[in-house]
């Protein structure tokens, strides 16, 4: 099992969800957690105008999605996120990042199921 966390542009969320649905929905809907976050990468914030002054805002608003999947689905998920989140054509600085990490345990609170059946 892996936990996949991706930081994407907020406006790409819809495209990412569509791409994920295409590879993960097999008679069942995939699970996802979505947060609004802020931070900075190579895009390094953005410039706003306030009262004729340029103000550099250090952090940019991004969307963070968290998905946990069984090993067989890891590559498909990564590919789908990349497909949905990359701006046309060929991507741009600020498109985001995908982090993949091992997942020790999953527990479904309602039933107590554990591991791959609970993901």
């Amino acid at each position, binding site marked *: 099992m892996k936990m996949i966390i991706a930081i994407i542009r907020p406006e790409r969320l819809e495209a990412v969800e569509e791409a994920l649905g295409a590879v993960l929905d097999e008679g069942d809907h995939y699970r996802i957690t979505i947060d609004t976050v802020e931070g900075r990468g190579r895009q390094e914030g953005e410039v*706003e*105008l*306030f*009262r*004729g*002054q*340029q*103000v*550099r*805002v*250090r952090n940019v608003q991004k969307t963070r999605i968290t998905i946990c999947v069984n090993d067989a689905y890891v590559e498909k998920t990564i590919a789908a996120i990349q497909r949905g989140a990359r701006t046309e054509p060929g991507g741009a600085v600020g498109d985001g990042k995908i982090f993949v990490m091992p997942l020790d345990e999953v527990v479904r609170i309602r039933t107590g199921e554990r591991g791959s059946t609970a993901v």
Partner: protein
Amino acid sequence: MEASVAAPVFDAGSTAWMLTSSALVLLMVPGLALFYGGMVRRKNVLTTMMMSFVAMALIGVQWVLVGYALAFGQSRGGFIGWDPALVALSGIDMNRAYSDKGIPELVFVMFQGKFAIITPALISGAVAERMRFRSYLVFTVVWATLIYCPLAHWVWAADGWLFARGVLDFAGGTVVHIAAGVSALVLALMLGPRRDFKRAAILPNNLVLTLTGAGLLWFGWFGFNAGSAVAVEHPAGATAGLAFTTTQSAAAAAGLSWMLMERWHHGKVTSLGLASGFVAGLVVVTPAAGHVRPLWALVMGAVASVVCYWAVQLKNRFDYDDSLDAFGVHGVGGIVGALLTGVFCFTPVQGLLDGDAAQLGKQALGVAVAIVFAGGGTFLIASVLKATLGLRATEQEERDGQDLHVHGERGYHFDQT
């Protein structure tokens, strides 16, 4: 009951319009609260809005108790009004007419009272996010009593000494905007800048509020300016129509002019810029509304935006923190408006444009008197406050935001279900 004199004849149209105008001017106070409230950081949104709202409570009482008596009571040498019978308005019978204008005096009292309420609230834009709230409350009442009431008497009362010298101030360019703007600058200088001024990004929490506020201000301003025709005509009609038209014209031209300035200077037209342009245009036309033709109102609006646009940049050059540009827009716009009134006026007297330079001189006198009196008076009041209550919020209050410390509330709980 007093022996009834011949029952006064009220003009229904004028009375209805003045009641409406009074309500419109009061609406400018929440408008101002939104305008200012949107521009500060989230942690200070309530205190900033409260600084406008409390004026409705404080001056709403002060005006009825003594404010009207001081501003419009029997003149004492042209310098201050006073009439014991006007205290708490107790001597004003509901049937008593105001002068020969065909409206009940109580309606006039209320109309003028709204001006007295919004004027000190304008000052709050310069002290936002750092003035001690308690001191602000005391300042507001003392300033309204010792600065606003005398100035209103000098300029607007029939026996006021500036009025007698022919200074024109149709709806308050001098009494309201110069007085508030200059006082704002003095307070900003005495307070010192916010600790994050030029150190960290200070960004507005919600420009949507600011734009909403600008819209309400414009709407209310029709009462402010077109309502002020009550001083010169009975029944309300032609002058009110002129003032309404010039108000609309100047605001529009000023908004357009600010947009073009920004486009040229920064390559972008900002929403705050357009809103500021509207306000600058409304300020500049205030002293002139019933005195100039619409074409010249357009010119005044356009000029006001250019001047105010550069005036709000001065604070960055000279390091004073006029947080929300109370001086840059109201002070500077008020001065420009008062002087241009002397250039473009055609009724009841002619200005420089028609070859008569005398009015411009009178306008300059009014401007100079307002600057010295309001600036000096504010310095004295604030000096006393500084030595007693203290002017500035504590550093902890400023870091955390005043909302939580002063009011025990936060403006937004959007993340709560």
